[in-house]
């Protein structure tokens, strides 16, 4: 089955995007990538250290992986734009995940500033993946602004609380003609399977993998769940009913 994830003009076999923060040691990243098949990895530019005395994050990212620098630390559009430009100038490519957060307690994204940053960066040739609250109007505006995908949160970032925004994400999947990549809050593989069954294009998982006692095995579990959810979506789920439907009907004899 030739079911590829398309973002911008690029195609990917894996629908699992991974993160690079929170690991006890970055040397685990190649193994995570290998067992999960993940082809896209997000990195916070604030953590990228090209002149490190020690072996650093960038040394561990497999060369085949697509780098998705994020603008972690940006509090407004201008800062996000500057960080994206620095990332590109540092050789991290022209993809960017926009994170504009000015609330450090709940880490919820600022939709207005994210939209402004998207407009600017898309016009400069960036492939822009904005991290957002699952909001239909914002999603529509982001299409107009040139976003390559939208990344709604399942629940607050780092919370592992699962898909608390399920109904809103469902609306985005229905209405937004861009890849919908569910990011943040996914706590367990069944959460990822759920949004994939709903028709999400992909999931980005960091905390749930990194905070597991066995991150490598958990990455594999997420990969399998995302794959299963995707296949279920493509196959089409059976209809739910309020009552039992017997596979051997009791009144079948009346029609014989």
């Amino acid at each position, binding site marked *: 089955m030739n079911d590829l994830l398309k973002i911008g003009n690029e195609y990917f076999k894996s629908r699992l995007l991974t993160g690079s*923060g*929170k*690991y*006890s*040691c*970055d040397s685990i990243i190649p193994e995570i990538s290998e067992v999960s098949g993940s082809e896209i990895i997000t990195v916070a*530019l*604030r*953590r*990228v*250290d090209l002149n*490190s*005395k*020690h072996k*650093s994050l960038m040394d561990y990212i497999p060369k085949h992986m697509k780098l998705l620098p994020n603008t972690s*630390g940006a*509090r407004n559009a201008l*800062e996000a734009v*500057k*960080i994206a430009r*620095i990332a590109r100038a540092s050789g991290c490519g022209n993809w960017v995940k926009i994170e504009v957060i*000015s*609330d*450090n*307690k709940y*880490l919820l994204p600022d939709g207005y500033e994210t939209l402004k940053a998207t407009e600017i960066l898309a016009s400069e040739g960036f492939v822009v993946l904005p991290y957002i609250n699952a909001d239909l109007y914002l999603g529509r505006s982001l299409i107009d602004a040139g976003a390559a995908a939208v990344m709604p949160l399942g629940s607050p970032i*780092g*919370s*592992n609380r699962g898909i608390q925004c399920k109904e809103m994400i469902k609306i985005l999947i229905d209405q937004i003609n861009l890849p919908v990549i569910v990011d943040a809050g996914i706590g367990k593989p069944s959460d990822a399977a759920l949004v994939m069954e709903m028709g999400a294009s992909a999931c980005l998982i960091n*905390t749930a993998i*990194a*905070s597991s006692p066995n991150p490598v095995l958990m990455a594999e579990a997420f990969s399998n769940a995302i794959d299963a959810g995707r296949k279920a979506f493509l196959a089409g789920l059976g209809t739910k009913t309020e009552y039992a439907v017997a596979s051997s009907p009791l009144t079948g004899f009346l029609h014989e």
Partner: protein
Amino acid sequence: MSNFKSILDKWGSFDFDKFIKTSNKNIIEDILHKDYLTDTDFLTLLTPASDSFLEKLAQKAHKRTVNEFGKTIQIYTPLYLSNFCTNRCIYCGFNRDNRIERDILSLKEIENECMSISEKGLKHILLLTGGDRVKTSINYIKSAVLIARKYFSSISIEMYSMTSDEYSTLADLGVENVTLYQETYNCETYKKVHLSGEKSDYDFRLNAPERAAEAGIRSLNLGVLLGLSEPIKDFFLAGLHCSYIQKKFPGVNVSISLPRIKEATGGYQTGIEVSDKQLAKFIIAFRLFIQKGGISISTRESECLRDNLIPLGVTKMSAESKTKVGGHIKNDGINQFETSDKRTVEEFHASIKAKGYQPVYKDWVTI
């Protein structure tokens, strides 16, 4: 919200002694199951009532920290630019009354110290001065920041309380963090230990973090000098101060330090001891109260204790600290206080790795 003084005033008539003595351990079980703690929950956790729940609370604090920050420890080191001081703080080695050799780094010396520190792989620096607005003027500090910017990704300052304009100037130059301890929130004790000088103005210091936040400083590190006054009350109010800042300035990162008083030149002693157990409990309670707040432990504490505190919620630690002026190249003069953990950056790096944590040297980009 006017300023934090109004919050302090609300707690002014609260009977802390009675609360600390009468808190019941039955309440702790309820607090353990909460996602978000009230102010009173936080205070309850600081009392002896939580003693028998310490391990359960520690496990929860550990999980929270791993979820929020991962298994990482951000490393920085201090650089003392000067020990000139016009204040008379009786617990401090730099007290104006102390007959010590005073020194201030020239700009060339700052450059040399920065170069030496950066060669150790450090990317976050904390610049410190004593409280002397003439010897270490804003112009001198600006020059020091401009030099430090060439070598470090993140610049923090721990200096005298400044005006909004001064903070604004430094924020524009790229100062990310202001570290400012109230030392004690107890007004009476504050007056007794700060005999004269600008620092003796309690309110001016109390409102400094807000001035810094309004001026565009991105992160604030608050704290009290544990042992100056009743520690539960003092640490509770420091936690409330962080919570207040977080609500009023949601874009500002807050963190806390928990320095315990150490004997310095002058030999001041309070007789108030904060045990290792109490220090650990404060860290745990703070993590559960301010989930995304940073927690910093300096080299005042011993190697062994620092290593053991890591999983409880610590996010930032200093390494290879010198508490004399310069200290990395220039190595004469007197320490502000004695450090306990003398490990080099490389030794500390290895210890963190052995603990299953990742030492993080760079976690900021100046734009």
